[in-house]
């Protein structure tokens, strides 16, 4: 068989690799063939018959979405017969479809509308009554309007193949065919909304977004979801400083079209009723609202006094703050306040991994590498729950590339379904179990290794040398919890390591030690909630908290400064793989300030010279001084993800008492933020049979 294959479309000679489908080959050559059911990456369906083309010597029109190119094939995509067939198909699709685009939620971004406009007949010969079925609500976020459905099976396939949930099916026959949820009248699923996003018509609509606006009235801003460490791009639909929806219909970013419930709906915490919108100072034991100038002046004055008296500062940074903020905060702490006590809640042992990989290049896997790897080894993490994008990629890898997947986890995980081997062991025994997989891993030929908090400290080095001993190329992902957990490590919010994992001049106390230190004079917490489940030993400590909500930590604070969410500021974040992406400011919220702005104002109040607190300038400093962050700016400026190279030298990791523990979030939780998201609390699944953490 010739490869590449030469064939002719509309009189134009084209070439494509053998096995390419005609519809794909045409698309690449700039020839559009309309289709509904065909969807790149999903199984072929050939249900909608929109992509019919005329092929020379074939007795009938053929569906180009299931037709591989053949040598010498002559195809017509715009011949009168094809044009006529498309008109007829659309006429059929519209027999029962309501013609009420002006009231349909999909109007303006509906594929059926576009196709009718472009290829449709403009009139119908059907005079019969339309078959009507009432609209149904399947869950708080999913509505189904059967008459609008054109039975393209996209939702059924994305749920089964993409998400591995299989919550949707088609029941009945012919004109009565209907998409049906797995629990009869409701859904028990991930509630990810992929079915809504992928629906070409207005049959599946989102309970969060429907009937709020029109797509053309919104501004569409690419932001990075702040809920887990995967760094999915979520395109926010914004109108009047209100986020109305999140999706990724343009398939941009590292996640393509994928988003989980958190990326798609859980931006709603930004407008939660309990959102702090004014600074507060504790007066007579009670927090009282004050102006920003008063609060900032007070903090600057107290910090100045404590510093002058040689007091002991503890600084705890946040895992959802931007790189710029984290970098500036550690600089503020180490240079401005002169304290070595700086830390954050750690969820994965990134320094140990980077140390174990010292001197290598390209040893860290990107989200894309995971999709292309021949073998995937998952250790100690329930990916479907904690890292939905990485789980999606693993499933896609197994589906498209027949990757060998190995799971070594405590309990059953969804990835078992695609796993070549699934092994069970408690956190302490997982490394030993991995070592029994030697021959299988070797046979896979290439590996991406993902590990959670069960592999930390010396075990990381042991894991890397074991994989090395197999002699197969391997890349690693150290799983961490939130949108910038990785960047927080990279920026040096660690007691013993500065930015770029350079040894700190002086080793300070870790988070647990700070909280337990009765002699602490000041505690500064930025975007974290360390006092959830822990007590502060120091009675006299002056506590400053920057947060969006009155968390347990904020309730103990002497000064609370309301901060901006990830969707209200610019900056960069680094995902669990080490890919840097840029946040774009989507909305403004009254009364709050970005953490970086707060640092800048405090620095000015204390007359500290720490450089300008402007995201772009701080990022320039990061690019110049933090190893691996010298990333190409055009890549991130245009919404792409840039990989950071690991450090080349050894990292002084030994001798540190460390607490590294993942929060073990599920699909429906996101640390302290969970309780402020209406959607996450609205769905019935958590905790459900399928969703036990």
């Amino acid at each position, binding site marked *: 068989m010739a490869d590449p294959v030469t064939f002719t479309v509309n009189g134009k000679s084209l070439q494509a690799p053998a096995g390419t489908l005609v519809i794909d080959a045409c698309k690449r050559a700039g020839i559009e063939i309309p289709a509904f059911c065909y969807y790149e990456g999903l199984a072929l369906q050939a249900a909608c018959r929109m992509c019919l083309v005329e092929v020379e010597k074939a007795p009938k029109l053929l569906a180009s979405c299931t037709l591989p190119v053949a040598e010498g094939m002559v195809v017509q995509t715009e011949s009168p017969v094809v044009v006529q067939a498309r008109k007829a198909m659309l006429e059929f699709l519209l027999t029962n479809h309501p013609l009420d685009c002006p009231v349909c939620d999909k109007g303006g971004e509906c594929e059926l509308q576009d196709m009718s406009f472009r290829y449709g007949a403009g009139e119908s010969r059907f005079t019969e009554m339309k078959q009507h079925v009432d609209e149904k609500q399947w869950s708080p976020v999913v509505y189904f309007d059967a008459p609008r459905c054109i039975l393209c099976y996209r939702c059924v396939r994305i749920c089964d193949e993409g998400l591995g949930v299989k919550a949707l*099916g088609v029941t009945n026959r012919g004109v009565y065919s209907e998409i*049906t949820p*797995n629990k009869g009248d409701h859904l028990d699923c991930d509630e990810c909304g992929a079915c809504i996003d992928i629906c070409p018509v207005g049959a599946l609509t989102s309970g969060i977004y429907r009937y709020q606006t029109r797509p053309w009235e919104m501004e569409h801003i690419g932001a990075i979801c702040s809920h887990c460490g995967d760094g999915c791009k979520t395109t926010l639909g914004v109108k009047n400083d209100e986020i109305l929806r999140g999706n990724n219909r343009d398939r941009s970013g590292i996640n393509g079209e994928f988003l989980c419930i958190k990326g798609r709906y859980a931006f709603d915490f930004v407008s939660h009723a309990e959102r702090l919108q004014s600074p507060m100072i504790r007066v007579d034991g009670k927090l009282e609202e004050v102006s920003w100038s008063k609060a900032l002046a007070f903090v600057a004055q107290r910090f100045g006094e404590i510093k002058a008296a040689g007091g002991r500062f503890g600084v705890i940074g946040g895992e959802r703050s931007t790189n710029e903020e984290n970098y500036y905060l550690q600089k503020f702490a180490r240079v401005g306040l002169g304290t070595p006590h700086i830390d954050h809640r750690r969820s994965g042992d990134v320094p140990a991994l980077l140390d174990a990989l010292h001197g290598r290049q390209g040893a860290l896997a990107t989200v894309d590498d995971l999709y292309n790897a021949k073998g995937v080894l998952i250790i100690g993490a329930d990916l479907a729950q904690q890292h939905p994008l990485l789980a999606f990629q693993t499933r896609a890898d197994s589906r498209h590339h027949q990757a060998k997947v190995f799971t070594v986890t405590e309990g059953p995980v969804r990835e078992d379904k695609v796993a070549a081997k699934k092994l069970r062991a408690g956190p302490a025994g997982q490394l030993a179990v991995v070592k029994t997989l030697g021959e299988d891993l070797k046979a896979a030929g290439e590996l991406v290794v993902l590990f959670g908090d069960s592999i930390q400290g010396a075990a990381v080095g042991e894991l890397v040398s074991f994989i090395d001993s197999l002699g197969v190329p391997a890349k690693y992902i150290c799983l961490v919890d939130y949108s910038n957990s990785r960047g927080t490590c990279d920026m040096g919010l660690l007691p013993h390591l500065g930015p770029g994992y350079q040894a700190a001049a002086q080793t300070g106390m870790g988070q647990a030690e700070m909280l337990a230190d009765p002699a602490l004079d000041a505690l500064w917490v930025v975007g974290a909630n360390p006092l959830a489940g822990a007590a502060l030993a120091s009675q006299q400590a002056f506590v400053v908290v920057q947060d969006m909500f009155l968390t347990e930590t904020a309730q103990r604070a002497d000064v609370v400064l309301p901060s901006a969410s990830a969707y209200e500021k610019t900056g960069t974040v680094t995902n669990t793989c080490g890919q840097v992406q840029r946040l774009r400011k989507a909305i403004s919220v009254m009364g709050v300030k970005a953490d970086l702005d707060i640092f800048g104002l405090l620095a000015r109040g204390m007359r500290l010279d720490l450089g300008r607190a402007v995201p772009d300038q701080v990022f320039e400093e990061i690019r110049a001084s933090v190893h691996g962050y010298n990333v190409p700016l055009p890549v991130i400026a245009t919404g792409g993800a840039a990989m950071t190279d690991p450090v080349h030298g050894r990292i002084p990791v030994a001798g540190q008492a460390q607490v590294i523990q993942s929060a073990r979030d599920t699909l429906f939780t996101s640390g302290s933020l969970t309780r402020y998201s209406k959607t996450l609390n609205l769905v019935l699944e958590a905790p459900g049979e399928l969703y036990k953490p």
Partner: protein
Amino acid sequence: MTFSPELEKRFAEMAAKYPEGRQKACLIPMLMYAQDEVGHMTEELKEEVAKRLNISVLEVNEVVGYYTMMRKKRMGKTHLQICTNISCLLWDGDQLWERACQKLGIGHNEVTADGKISLEEVECIGACSWAPAIQVNYDFQHHVTPEQLDKLIDDLRNA
């Protein structure tokens, strides 16, 4: 849910015919045989079959919804199917259908009050050469005359 020992044996034989991991292929025969014993597609039956084949109830529903021979509600002890498709129609199959409806006082997919007989107007049952044809449970009757139909119904009523 439990089935009779004969049916259990039949299921076991069926499952052994398919390669490991392809037991899902037993779905249709399993449902049909179980229907013969249970009467119609009860929720309990669908759940049991789904459990045995390790598939979801939704997948069973997809199949059950598609096939009219998988009954969604309880039918009579004898299920009378009368063909009114083209060949039978030419031999007055439609009149047989109307006669049966009048005699029993029920319509399409309905059951007599005593639960003995149910009626269904069916599309071609593949007996065109012997039209008009009717199907009594699994048995065919060929060249049916109105008198034969009356006698059949009377016999069934008195049985």
